[in-house]
C-alpha cells in the first residue's frame, strides 16, 4: 500500500509544480503521471530483475534444495534430509580446507591493506620522485588475469628452474621449496595475490587521500604534529570509509580465491593449499557430488554473510542509500 501512497505523493507534488508553472491547461497530467512513475521504472529495471532472478535467486534456491539431496548432476535429486551437512561436519578434509582458507584470508587482508595504503601514501606524497611512472607500474597487475598472474609467478618461483631459486643458489644458499613445502607455497600465494590485488585498492586510496583537505594537514603541522602523527590522527580516520570497503572486498575476495591458485600451483602440493571454492569445484564437478558440494556452498555463503554483517556493524557511517 505504501507504493501507491508514495507514488501519488510524488505525482501530486509534480502536478502542483506543473499547475503553478503552466496553468490549468495541463490539469489532466496527474493521472497519466502516476502510471508513468510506476510503469517507466518497472520497464527500466525489468531486464536486471529477470537476470537477477535467473542467475542469483534461482541458483541460490536450487543450491539450498540440492544441499538436502543426493543429486549427482544427472537423474532426479532425491531428498535425504540433512545428511550432507552431517557428513560435512564430520569430514576432516572439509575442515582442513576451511582452515586453510581462513588462514589465507587472515594473512592476506592485512597484507593487501598495508600494501595498498602504503603505496597510495607514497604515490601522493610530495617528496617521492617519478610518481607517475611508478603509478603505472603498480597498476599493471590489474590488467593481468589471475591465470596469467599464476603463470608469471610460477615461472619466477619454479623450484628447479625459477629465477628466484637460481639467484639464491648463486648467492650460496639452497633453493627454497616453493612447490613442495605447503607453507612456502602459501607464502607464494600470498605474495601473488597481494601483487595482483594492490592496483585497484591503491586507486581507491589515492582518490580518498586526494579528497582530504590540505588545510587539515597544514594546521596540524603548524601545531607541531610530525608526519606519523598527521597520518595516524588525521589521514587514517578520514580514510575510514575507504578502509572499510577495501577490507570488506579483500576479505570476500580472499574467501573465494580460486583462479590464480589454479594456475600457480593448483592448490598444491597435493591438496594442502586447496581453498574452499576449489573444494566445491572438485566435489561438484569432478566427483559429480552436487548435493554435497551445494552443502559446502551453503556453508561458505553463511560465512560470507556473517563476515559482511560483522563488517557492516563496524562501519557506523556506511550509507547504502
Amino acid at each position, binding site marked *: 500500500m505504501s507504493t501507491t501512497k*508514495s*507514488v501519488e505523493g*510524488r505525482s501530486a507534488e*509534480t502536478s502542483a509544480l506543473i499547475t503553478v508553472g503552466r496553468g490549468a491547461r495541463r490539469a489532466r497530467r496527474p493521472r497519466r503521471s502516476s502510471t508513468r512513475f510506476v510503469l*517507466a*521504472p518497472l*520497464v*527500466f*529495471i525489468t*531486464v*536486471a530483475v529477470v*537476470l*537477477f532472478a*535467473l*542467475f542469483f535467486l*534461482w*541458483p*541460490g534456491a536450487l*543450491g539450498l534444495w*540440492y544441499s538436502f539431496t543426493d543429486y549427482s548432476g544427472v537423474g532426479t535429486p532425491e531428498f535425504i534430509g540433512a545428511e550432507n551437512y552431517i557428513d560435512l561436519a564430520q569430514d576432516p578434509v572439509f575442515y582442513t580446507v576451511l582452515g586453510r582458507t581462513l588462514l589465507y584470508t587472515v594473512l592476506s587482508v592485512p597484507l593487501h591493506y598495508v600494501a595498498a595504503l602504503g603505496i597510495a601514501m607514497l604515490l601522493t606524497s*610530495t*617528496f*617521492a*620522485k617519478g610518481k607517475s611512472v*611508478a603509478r603505472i*607500474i*603498480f*597498476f*599493471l597487475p590489474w*590488467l593481468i*588475469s*589471475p*591465470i*596469467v598472474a599464476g603463470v*608469471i609467478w610460477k*615461472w*619466477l618461483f619454479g623450484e628447479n628452474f625459477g*629465477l628466484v631459486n*637460481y639467484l639464491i643458489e648463486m648467492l650460496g644458499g639452497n633453493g627454497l621449496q616453493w612447490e613442495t613445502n605447503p607453507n612456502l607455497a602459501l607464502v607464494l600465494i600470498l605474495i601473488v595475490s597481494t601483487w595482483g590485488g*594492490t592496483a*585497484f585498492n591503491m*586507486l581507491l586510496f589515492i*582518490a580518498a587521500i586526494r579528497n582530504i583537505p*590540505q588545510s587539515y594537514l*597544514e594546521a596540524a603541522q603548524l601545531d607541531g604534529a610530525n608526519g606519523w602523527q598527521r597520518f595516524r590522527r588525521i589521514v587514517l580516520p578520514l580514510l575510514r570509509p575507504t578502509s572499510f*570497503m577495501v577490507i570488506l*572486498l579483500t576479505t*570476500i*575476495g580472499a574467501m*573465494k580465491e580460486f*583462479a590464480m591458485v589454479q594456475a600457480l600451483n593448483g592448490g598444491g602440493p597435493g591438496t594442502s593449499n586447496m581453498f574452499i*571454492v576449489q573444494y566445491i*569445484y572438485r566435489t*561438484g564437478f569432478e566427483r559429480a557430488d*552436487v548435493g554435497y*558440494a*551445494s552443502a559446502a556452498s551453503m556453508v561458505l555463503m553463511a560465512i*560470507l*554473510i556473517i563476515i559482511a554483517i560483522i563488517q557492516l556493524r563496524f562501519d557506523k557511517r556506511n550509507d*547504502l542509500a
Partner: protein
Amino acid sequence: MTTLRPGTRTAGTSTAGTRARTRTSRPLRALPSTLVLWLLALGFLIPVAWFLLSSFKPGSELFSLPLTLFPENWTVSGYTTAWNRFNFAQYFLNTSIVAVVTTVLTVLVSAMTGYALAKYQAWWLKLFFICILATTMLPTEVIMPSSFAVVRDLGLYNTLAGIIVPSIITATGIFMFRQYFKTIPDELLEAARIDGVSEFGAFWRIMLPLAKPIAVVLAIFSFQWRWNDYIWPLIVLRDPDRYTLQVALRSIVGADNVDWSVLLSASVISLVPMLVLFAIFQRQIMNADVNSGLKD
C-alpha cells in the same frame, strides 16, 4: 608543505636559516620516499619483465644455465608455435565476442537500472537495490554447482551465450550509474517532462548522453572482468573449440609437462588487448572515481 614556504620566506631576515634548511633538506627528504617507492615498483615490475623477456627466448635457452636476463637469441618462435598449435585465433575470437557483447549489454542494462533506482521512488525499487548490493557479497563462485545447473537447464551449456547472459548484471555498474544519476538535478527531468518528453525519451536522449564518462569507465571495467574471467567459462564450456583464452591457458599450465615456451608466449598474447585498452584509456582508468563503485 609547499604553501607554507612563501610565508617563511617573506617573514624577514630572522628566517634566513629556516629557508636555507628547507632548501637543502628537500632533496634529502625526497630520498627515502623515492627509494622505497622505486624498490617497491621494481618488485612489482621484475616478475612481469622476466616473464616478458623469457617469452622471446628460444625453448633451448629457457632452462640453460647460467640464466640471462635478456635472450641471447631473440626469437618469436614461441609465439608462432602458440598461435598455430593451440587454435589460438579461435580462443582469441571467442574471448573477444564474449568481452565485447557482455560489455555493451552491461553498460546498457546498468544505465537503465541505475537510472530507475536514482530517479524514481518506490519501495520495490529500494528492495531491488538491496538485492543488487547483496550480489556483491554472494558471488557466483559461491553457488557454482547450482549456477551450472541453471545455465544447463536454460539450454546455454557449452555456448558463449552461457557466459555472456549471466555476466550482464553487475552491482558495481548499477551502483556507479545510480550514484551518477543522483547528482544530476531532478529539475532537468521535470523540465523535460513539462516539454512532453516521454520517460524513455528523457532517459535515452538526455540522461544517457550525460552519463557518458561513467559508461566509458564501466565499459573498461567490464571488458577487463570478462576478458580475464575464468570461472564462468570453466563451468559453462566443454568444447575446446569454444574455450576462452583463460581456460585455454589454464589447460596448458595444468598439463603434467608444461610447455613453457608456448605457455609464456600464449600468456603474453592474451595480455595484448588489455595493454592496448590501457594505453588508450589510461587517463579515464586512473582518474576514475572508483570510490563510488564496488569491485566485481
